[in-house]
Structure formats: structure tokens, C-alpha cells
């Protein structure tokens, strides 16, 4: 969707270093101050970390293949709900989800297996809907994935047996901590990096830049896109599961348009197609959101607590988004990346 200029410039390498530094800093900070750290600050860092995972995985699909999915939050929801259902204690299950089928009502598993099962389920769904969807292009795939999001939302609201419908799903054990988040960030960065630098990845890049040329040189367009889509769904679901087990309660509304827009903003701010950018975007927008949300905290009407409305922060974010799109379309880092020239040279077949 935009001109790709491979850069091995010092700037690109430097920003990688910064990105890694930032991530490590979170880690070090986490270790050092763990227990002593201001719980609020810790919360922000953890949410920031989860956002990094979400944006990176979204970038894998939207940024690197040009399959601009607007429905990824649907996978996030699947990850959240499925993993939560699996980890709920039997008591909580009996209380909150009395109508669960027997095979589920007696199951309680650990965090990791639940996450993996949920993510695999999301990946399988992504595979199924992906096969037909990958043939579409441009607008159409965006609208189709949007349709997917709406379908997931409707199912969540109506399948009360499993989801408590539109009501809050609570009682989830808070398994997520800074360690888990950090681990999954590293895994995500690694996976995304590996894919983008693999033969599949080079195929992805070719596909993004020029689909017709990609066909011409024999790149299997559909397979490359599908792989990216499925993997990104997997990782997004992990992110959803992590979030669910941090917030401990959520509802279908948590995984709908507001979430979609927030993640997309992070993606665009950081720069579509840039790994560093995704990290940077997630960090910046999360911080900005928090600052704005604090500005909103002044609004409490007597004894009535207004549930997360995100009024002001959404408004400011949407304005910021429009401004960025007008003035700095490529985001903060655009396509600049970590030493792509090497990759590019390998792309040209030797003959």
C-alpha cells in the first residue's frame, strides 16, 4: 500500500535498539520494582505490553500482507472467552455459567494450556474463514473481516450458555503478570521477525507490494497471506487471553469497535509495516490514553460511577489519528525497519 524503501540506515538499526531497550527496560523495571512498584503504573505497563502483542500481530496481517483486517478483535474475543471459560474454577463456573455442557463444566485447566487451546481455536477459525477471504482484495477483505467481527459479537451476546451474553463475564483468575506479558512479547517479536525474514516472509512482502507481479514470479499469494493471517489470529488470541486474565472481567463490548479502533490507531501511529513502529505505537498510544483517561477521571456523577466510556480519550485519539493520517501518513517510523537491504538482495534469484 505504500512505497517500500528498504533501509539499512543507521536510523533503522538504532530504532530497533531503542525498541529492544524499551522492552528490556520494562522487564528490568518490572523485576526491580516488583512488589514495590506502584500498582497503577504496573497496570499501565502490563496493558502496554499486551497492546504491543496485539499491534505486532495485527501488523503481521495488515502491515506485511496488505490484508487489512478490521476484524482481528474478534480473534481477541475468542482468545479471551475460550481461555477464561477453561480456567474458571469449578465453583465460579457453577455460579456464573450454570448451563455449561457437562464436559466443559467439570474442566478447569492451567493458564498456559488454556491460552494455547484458545489461540489454536482462533487460528483454526482464521484458517477456515481465511481460505475464502484471502482471495478478496482491498476494500472487500476489510469489509468481510468487519462482518466477521460483527458475527463474533452477535454470537457472544446471544450464546449466553457459554458467555453470559451481554452481561459482564467475571471471576476470571488473575494469572497474567509482567512475566507472562514479557514472555509473550518476546515470543511474538520472534515469530513475526522469523516469518518476515523467511521465504514466506519475502513472499509476503512481494505480495503486499504488487500482487500481480507476485503471481508472475510464482509466489503463492494465497498461501502466504493465509499463513500470516492465521499466525496473527493466533497471537491476537493470546493477547486477548492475557488481557482477560489481567482484567478478570470483561464483556462483549470490550471486544468491539472501541478496541478495534484503539489497536488500529496504535498501528497507524507507529507505522504500518514496521516492527519497531508497532512497539512504539503501542507504547505511545497506551500512555496517551492513560493520560487522557486520568483527565476524564474528574467526571463522577455523585455516587454513580460511569462505566468506561472513553469519551474524551476517544475524541482526542480520533483527532490525533486524522491529523497523523493527513500530515504524517506513514506513521512515526513508516516502513523503516531493521536492515532490510540484506533481505531484499536475497529476494533476487541468482541466475
Amino acid at each position, binding site marked *: 500500500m505504500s512505497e517500500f524503501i528498504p533501509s539499512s540506515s543507521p536510523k533503522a538499526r538504532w530504532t530497533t535498539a531503542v525498541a529492544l531497550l524499551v522492552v528490556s527496560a520494562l522487564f528490568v523495571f518490572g523485576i526491580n520494582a516488583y512488589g514495590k512498584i506502584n500498582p497503577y503504573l504496573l497496570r499501565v505497563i502490563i496493558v502496554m505490553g499486551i497492546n504491543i502483542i496485539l499491534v505486532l500481530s495485527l501488523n503481521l496481517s495488515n502491515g506485511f500482507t496488505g490484508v487489512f483486517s478490521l476484524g482481528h478483535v474478534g480473534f481477541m474475543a475468542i482468545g479471551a472467552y475460550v481461555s477464561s471459560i477453561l480456567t474458571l474454577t469449578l465453583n465460579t463456573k457453577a455460579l456464573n455459567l450454570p448451563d455449561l455442557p457437562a464436559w466443559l463444566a467439570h474442566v478447569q485447566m492451567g493458564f498456559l494450556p488454556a491460552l494455547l487451546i484458545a489461540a489454536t481455536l482462533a487460528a483454526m477459525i482464521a484458517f477456515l474463514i481465511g481460505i*475464502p477471504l484471502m482471495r478478496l482484495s482491498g476494500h472487500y477483505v476489510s469489509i468481510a473481516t468487519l462482518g466477521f467481527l460483527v458475527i463474533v459479537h*452477535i*454470537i457472544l451476546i*446471544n450464546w449466553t450458555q457459554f458467555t453470559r451474553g451481554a452481561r459482564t463475564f467475571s471471576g476470571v483468575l488473575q494469572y497474567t503478570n509482567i512475566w507472562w506479558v514479557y514472555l509473550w512479547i518476546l515470543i511474538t517479536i520472534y515469530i513475526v521477525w522469523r516469518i518476515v525474514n523467511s521465504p514466506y516472509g519475502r513472499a509476503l512482502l512481494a505480495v503486499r507490494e504488487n500482487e500481480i507481479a507476485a503471481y508472475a514470479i510464482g509466489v503463492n499469494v494465497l498461501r502466504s497471506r493465509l499463513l500470516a493471517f492465521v499466525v496473527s489470529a493466533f497471537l491476537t488470541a493470546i493477547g486477548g487471553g492475557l488481557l482477560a486474565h489481567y482484567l478478570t472481567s470483561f464483556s462483549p463490548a470490550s471486544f468491539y469497535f472501541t478496541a478495534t479502533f484503539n489497536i488500529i490507531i496504535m498501528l*497507524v501511529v507507529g507505522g504500518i509495516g514496521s516492527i519497531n513502529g508497532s512497539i512504539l505505537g503501542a507504547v505511545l498510544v497506551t500512555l496517551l490514553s492513560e493520560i487522557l483517561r486520568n483527565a476524564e477521571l474528574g467526571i463522577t456523577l455523585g455516587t454513580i460511577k460511569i462505566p468506561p466510556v472513553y*469519551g474524551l480519550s476517544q*475524541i482526542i485519539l480520533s483527532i490525533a489519528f*486524522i491529523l497523523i493520517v493527513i500530515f504524517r*501518513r506513514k506513521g512515526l517510523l513508516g516502513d523503516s525497519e531493521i536492515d532490510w537491504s540484506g533481505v531484499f538482495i536475497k529476494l533476487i534469484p541468482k541466475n
Partner: protein
Amino acid sequence: MTFIEYLIQQTINALSLGSIYALVAIGLAMVFGILRLINFAHGDLMMVACYVAFFLISSGIGFGPVFILSILAVTLLGILMERVAYRPVRGAPDVIMLLTSLAVSIFIQNIFIMFLSPVPRSFRNITPSFLDIVNKWGAVGISNINIVTIVITAILFILLTLFVTKTRLGTSMRATSENLIAAQLIGVHIDRVILTAFAIGSAMAGIAGFLWAARLGKIDPLMGFIPLLKAFVAAVIGGFGSLGGAVIGAYVLGFAEIFLIGFLPPSLSSYRDAFVFVLLILVLLIRPNGILGSTEREKV
């Protein structure tokens, strides 16, 4: 109620629902045809029209003037949107334009949530009460709101058709959505055409908003969202970018929805909207250019 009577009843409901979708879809299709922009904020225009009416009615002026002023306000908002948010990104990659319109939509919705509450307000005291009268014809009940919806929509279609075929500006619009470059080269005032598309589309969305709110009886800041999505589906079914297609798709959707509610088992009826979107995805897969669109694929 005999089967025939049931059929008639549902047909009228379907026509009525389809009409509202058509009014919204036309605006979407008009803008998409010219700019290749999917305007997410289009649905919010429905909402704004209703809220403007809501506040104007308390000033004591009659429904007629309130209606006109609301539509005017929403038309201006549409034009403003184009000027401020969409013009600067004209020519940008499709994705950017899509995201910009998403941002505009979220902006508008949240402004309204922030300054008004997200709690729904009643629209009953705004719409003239004669709309609620149900005319009985045998066992079939035809409410006035349905008749009004269908009639108003029909009138607007006729006017719009006359506009795009008989007037210079309308013809310019058609030419522009056919081929932007050619339109520029023959001397079409593109900015004016785009402005007109937004103005007409917004006005129609505003009218649709009134009709929708009259059916529902209430308004809330997020009310435009579902009709927008449905209008999307309608436009895609009929062939995105073509006005005729949008209209046909809207009625197809209206009928599909009404008869789906009728024939789905009760346990699944709340999933009705999900089926609508499955339909969307199916159409995109089988015939992405819609009923009226060509079956051309990108030529190499």
C-alpha cells in the same frame, strides 16, 4: 391470518425496512462511486439528525420546520466532514481513507456520548402521532409509518433519478463515478460534484434517521451503527458504487431480513443479524461486484 395475509404483511414490512436501508445505502454508494471512500460516519448522520430534532422540538416550533432544519443541519455536517477530514486524504490508499472515516465516526459518536448521555431518549414526542396509527385490512395491519416510509422513499428515488439524468450536475456525478480522469478532462467541476454527493447522501441519511427513529421510538448516540452496517451489506449485495445496485441490494436485504425472522426457529432469531453478515461474506466471495456489478476480475 391466512398465509396470503401473512405474506402481504411481511412484504410491506420488508419494503419499509428495505426503503430505509436504501436511503442510507444510496449515500454510501454515491460517495464510494466517486471517491472510493467507505464513509463509516454515514450512519452517524442519521443519529445527528434525530438529536438535532430532539433539541429543536423543545423550542416549540412545529414538526415540519424541525424536520427541515434537522435535515439541513445534517447536510451541512456531511459537507463539513468532506472538507475537513476527507479532502486532505483524497487520493490516499484505500485503507487510509477507510481508517479516516472510522476515526470521524468514532469522533462524532463520542462527542455525542460525552455531551449527552449514552442513555436512549424517546423519540415518540417528536414524531407526529398519526404515524403510529395502524390501518387494519382484514388481518393485515399496515401502520402509517410503513406507508410513509415507502412513499417518501419512492418520491426521493424519482427526484434523484431525475436529478442524475436530467441535470448537468447530476450527469456530471454519473460521469465522475464512471471515470474520474475522464470527468476531469471534460471539464467537470470535481469538487462541486463531490460536495453534491455528500450533501445528497447526508440529507438522505438524515431522513432515514427520522424514519428509523420513528419505528424504534427512541434514539441513542450509537443508533446509526447497525443501519450503517446493513446499508453496507445492501450496497455490496447490489454492487458497490452503483446507485441502482444499492437500492436493489437494500430491498433484497430488507426482504431477506424480514423473512429470515419469520422462518428462523425462535431460538435462533436473535442471531438474525449474524446471518445477515454471513450473507455479506457469501456475496463477497461468490460475486464481489454484487448483483449489478460486472464479473470482471482484475486483468493482468
